């Protein structure tokens, strides 16, 4: 029987991106002993990739901004399916969370009077994103990491969690393995915070790295927690499309915030062609006004390139399908054109968008200060996730919390750019605080040894099947291909039914996956281990998307292309039924309190 190395903490945090680290810092500050499990090395999580900025109504650049505007923007962006309590707390607490980072050493770009500078972003009424050039995520994760290592937290690097452990319905800890040596580990904990990020690897074209296989979503589901809004997958409108090997890598929305425009192969700014009613009053109807907005004119309305991501992604898709795309199947994103408007535009672009300059120069041999980029939609972010209490971030399983991308609620049907970095600060902090509190009030639960052994046995099965078994890389590839084609930006019932059949076949193949070699740093084994989670989240996405017979936010159904008022009052919940079958059900939204309703009305 395989040996387990044992650890015990008050609070175990699974995931070490922004949400995980923020939760760990807060739990430690509240007196808890804290263990952090991270799938990669510390500081490499996906937060590092975030570019544009962190949204917070600091009102440093435009004093008309405040939490009420931010709240209304977030709800509008999410098509009112958001958990309003989370949207409220988020808008109120984000400024303080950003200032806290500064107190821990973060160095944001500055305004002329020395305060934190803020930039424009899609769906935000005023310049709201605190940023560091286009590498805001790196600044944030490094700040949290460097602050966190002095708080006494114990970090388990390069470990993957296999299962959450329960004791009569309450969380008891988790078990997993470490990649470096292939050892099995068990972490006993009074409370567990999931901060595992997203699911991007379920799709072929994605901005996400190998880690984002829906681990937290799947762990929570298997532990009996409810998942919510799983049909809402954000396709970021601008990913690289060429060369093929870098397809999907993110091109920050900041390019458009700084004045970049989208054009089709005919040179037309197609974003002016379709502006949704919800945004008509806030959007410029001519190029001149749009340009003035990006340059800080408070009386100008934003250019249509800065509409919400779901809409921009669909417009790009439409242009490409209509044969007005670029040679490599995207559209043009042009920032070089600003040379017509400002002197020394090359230096300006390099200063404002250094990583983008670097990325295109190095990976595509293209100088963005001189030529337009080719871009297209890429799977970027999961709005859906573990259903949590808005205040405490606790799931429906006692002692199990979730924060950041893995949690659902804040973003509703579509996330605004910049709201994820503030999400992970606000709700990482809350999850850490309430997890520590839960740990204080509850004794350690018991680990079920039989459950541990079963986890280990199933983890070792691919070695027993050996290299004669199915190639796990091939299964993963086929899964990504199917999800991309059948459950992607444009969905229909027949295609999604087909995807569910394919998922069934893939599951059978995954059960036959085999690998050579031994447990020590074996990428083939890790890929095989991630398949279960990927298959599970893919199924939840397809089933929820099938049930929602309307188009709203990130979900676009070709067979139901319009919004449906009735569906606008419901979320979709996915959970495991008593018999093990997947239950997918409609659940009415919680009623909005009158004072928040008034805020939304006022900002319309």
């Amino acid at each position, binding site marked *: 029987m395989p040996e387990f190395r044992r650890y015990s903490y008050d609070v175990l945090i699974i995931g070490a991106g922004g949400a995980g680290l923020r939760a760990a810092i807060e739990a430690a500050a509240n007196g808890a002993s804290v263990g952090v499990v991270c799938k990669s090395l510390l*500081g490499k999580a996906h937060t590092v990739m975030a570019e544009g900025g962190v949204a917070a109504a600091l009102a440093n650049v435009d004093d008309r901004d405040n939490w009420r505007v931010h709240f209304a923007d977030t709800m509008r962006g999410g098509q009112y399916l958001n958990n309003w309590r989370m949207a409220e707390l988020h808008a109120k607490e984000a400024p303080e969370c950003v200032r806290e980072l500064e107190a821990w050493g973060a160095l944001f770009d500055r305004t002329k009077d020395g305060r934190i500078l803020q930039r424009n972003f899609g769906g935000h009424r005023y310049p709201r994103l605190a940023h560091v050039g286009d590498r805001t995520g*790196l600044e944030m994760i490094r700040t949290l990491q460097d602050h966190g290592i002095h708080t006494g937290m114990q970090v388990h690097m390069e470990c993957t969690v296999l299962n959450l452990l329960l004791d009569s319905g309450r969380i008891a800890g988790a078990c997993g393995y470490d990649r470096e040596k292939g050892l099995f580990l068990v972490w006993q904990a009074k409370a567990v915070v999931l901060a595992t990020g997203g699911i991007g690897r379920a799709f072929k074209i994605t901005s996400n790295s190998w880690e984002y296989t829906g681990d937290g979503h799947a762990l929570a589901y298997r532990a009996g927690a409810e998942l919510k809004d799983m049909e809402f997958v954000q396709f970021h409108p601008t990913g690289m499309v060429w060369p093929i090997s870098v397809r999907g890598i993110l091109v920050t929305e900041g390019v458009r915030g700084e004045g970049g425009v989208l054009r089709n192969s005919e040179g037309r700014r197609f974003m002016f062609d379709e502006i949704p009613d919800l945004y008509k009053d806030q959007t410029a109807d001519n190029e001149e006004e749009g340009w003035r907005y990006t340059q800080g004119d408070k009386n100008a309305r934003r250019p249509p390139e800065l509409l919400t991501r779901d809409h921009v992604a669909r417009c790009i898709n439409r242009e490409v399908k209509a044969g007005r795309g670029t040679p490599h199947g995207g559209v043009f994103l042009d920032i070089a054109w600003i040379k017509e408007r400002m002197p020394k535009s090359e230096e300006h672009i390099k200063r404002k968008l250094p990583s983008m300059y670097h990325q295109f120069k190095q990976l595509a041999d293209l100088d963005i200060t001189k030529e337009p980029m080719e871009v297209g939609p890429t799977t970027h972010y999961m709005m859906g996730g573990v259903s949590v209490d808005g205040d405490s971030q606790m799931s429906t399983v006692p002692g199990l919390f979730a924060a950041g991308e893995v949690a659902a609620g804040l973003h509703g049907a579509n996330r605004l750019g910049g709201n994820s970095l503030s999400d992970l600060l606000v709700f990482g902090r809350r999850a850490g605080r309430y997890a520590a509190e839960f740990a204080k009030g509850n004794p350690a639960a018991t680990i079920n040894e039989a459950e541990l052994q079963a986890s280990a046995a199933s983890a070792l099965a691919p070695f027993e099947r050996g290299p004669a078994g199915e190639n796990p890389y091939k299964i993963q590839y086929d899964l990504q291909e199917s999800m991309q084609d059948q459950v992607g930006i444009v969905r229909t019932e027949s295609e999604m039914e087909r995807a569910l059949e394919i998922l069934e076949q893939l599951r059978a193949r995954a059960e036959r996956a085999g690998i050579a070699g031994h447990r020590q740093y074996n990428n083939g084994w890790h890929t095989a281990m991630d398949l279960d989670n990927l298959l599970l989240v893919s199924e939840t996405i397809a089933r929820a998307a099938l049930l929602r017979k309307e188009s709203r936010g990130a979900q676009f159904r070709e067979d139901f292309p319009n919004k449906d008022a009735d569906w606008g009052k419901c979320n979709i919940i996915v959970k495991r039924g008593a018999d093990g079958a997947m239950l997918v059900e409609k659940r009415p939204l919680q009623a909005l309190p009158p004072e928040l309703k008034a805020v939304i009305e006022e900002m319309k």
Partner: protein
Amino acid sequence: MATQATFRIWRGDPSGGKFQDFVTPVDEGMVVLDAVHRVQAEQAPDLAVRWNCKAGKCGSCSAEINGMPKLMCMTRLSNLNLEMPVIIEPMHAFPVIRDLVTDVSWNFEVKKTIRKFKPRSPDAPDGAWRMQQADVERVQEFRKCIECFLCQDVCHVLRDHHKQDEFIGPRYLVYAAALEMHPLDTEDRVSDLKKKHNIGYCNITTCCRQVCPESITITENAIIPLKERVVDRFFDPLKQLFNII
């Protein structure tokens, strides 16, 4: 561009290893990491490689390619001579775990030994500070570091003389510089730099600066100013004379 190429990849573990040749198709725009992934998916599923973002932002896929420390994800095949095998090895300055993966945990331990950020009290009633962009920019250069540890890999004090117990290496001199030059910081790390971190071991060969994928001017902008601070404090002849008197 060639339609296929040979990749000579080091495979082994702490007990030893050898190079193994893999021939695989190559396409336009591919980077070394793509080729390694293709080999892994089609020929050697258990080939160990560490990577994450594949966009030069996380600093996970550091290796030595044809003898040069580089990020695999940012090294384009079109910049290599594919007539010859492309040689891919793990970083030399760190112990091998398996194949291309090394044990870089020492770096994370070193960071903890550097005194943490200690800001002055807030400047304004809102609890925040006021800083000018020009003052911030000097430190922002250092904060671009993605912790790929290529500078540590190439530093002869670590790579050839194995002074890991005494010397913190260029990455952590940059880290210390970012803290020392932070407009808000009030901590003093100069004595530590001399006595504990042995900044004197660095003889400014600039190898670290030359391999930095973020083009941080490590030697000139970070290390030399720190050395000057140490010299000012400990080796100023006038001050020494004054101390004797």
